[in-house]
């Protein structure tokens, strides 16, 4: 089970500013271990952010995104006290969903 994300969402200048830190090893599949065997690729493929039933961000990621990725974006139409939900799915089908409340 993957570790939870750290999500900060706050109102700035009428928009919702979201900062997300995800715990993921993001293996590229090009690294070798101490025995010389290739470490299998393991990375987040899709990230989806929803707010009040609509998708505000959908991203397709690959192996060039760093380990423990940090995502920072803004969107319009949110208000303090409302919730956002963030989901990632990786190439092994593992997923993790976390929610956060938008602060004022």
């Amino acid at each position, binding site marked *: 089970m993957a*570790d939870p994300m750290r999500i900060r969402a706050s109102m700035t200048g009428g928009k919702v500013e979201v900062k997300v830190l995800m715990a993921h090893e993001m*293996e590229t599949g090009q690294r070798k271990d101490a025995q010389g065997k290739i470490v299998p690729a393991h990375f987040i493929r899709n990230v989806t952010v929803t707010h009040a039933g609509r998708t505000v961000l959908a*991203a397709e990621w690959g192996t060039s995104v760093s380990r423990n990725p940090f995502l920072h974006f*803004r969107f319009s139409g949110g208000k303090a006290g409302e919730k956002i939900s963030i989901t990632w799915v990786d190439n092994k089908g593992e997923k993790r969903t976390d929610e956060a409340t938008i602060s004022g």
Partner: protein
Amino acid sequence: MIAMRVPLVAGALAAALSFVAAAQDETQKGIERYRELLSEGNPAELWEARGEELWKAKRGPKNASLEQCDLGLGRGVVKGAFAQMPRYFPDTDRVQDVESRIVTCMVAVQGFTPEEAMKNPFSTPDRPSDLEALASYVAAASRGMKLDAPLRHPKEVEAFRVGEQLFYRRAGPHDFACVSCHGENGKRIRRQDLPKLNDPKEARRIFTTWPAYRVSQGTVRTMQHRLYDCYWQMRHPQLSYVSEASIGLMVYMAKYANGGTINAPGLKR
């Protein structure tokens, strides 16, 4: 608007690094900017969170949580404890740093054997280290406070002397000592600045930012690991985890770093 900071920043850094020596100041600025951007999303937060969970979890043969642990300010007090380490602890009759003290508590409070408690001090990609997480959590609880490591008890003074001797003692096939790299201002190794660790200005900036997330290693590393790695780089015999030697060196650095503001876990290359 979407801004994926990590890849963009990494690109900027790579571009910055492609300048030659003439543009060193520019490069330095680029690195500062890179650090500034990343500090908004320091992955060490994930370690802090895991450390907090571990701290509060009932574990070990005694099924107890580390909330019973005395980090120097009384049982269960975490806030501010890191700002007064390393220090002398009467119950163990030793000077201890944060990691050594966590090990003591895992043994005394939770009933682990010392071997179990210390079996995995440094993580690998497929094997996270509880000690790195716990140290991050304890350090973070003193963020913003001034470092005030005591140097009064005879054992603390003795540890300082041990650290001072080791700092200057040249040895090994390269005839290196800590002072070879950390004894002058303005030195660097390749592109990495080397702090003069007995200069308060430098020590305050450096000592107070460990443990730190190492971007190049994708994990949090502790001061114990930093020293262990320095010893390996000097080709000295392996520095044992939480050994008297390692703590002596920390007491030595802490004396010069005292008064600096704790900003740990930090973020480093």
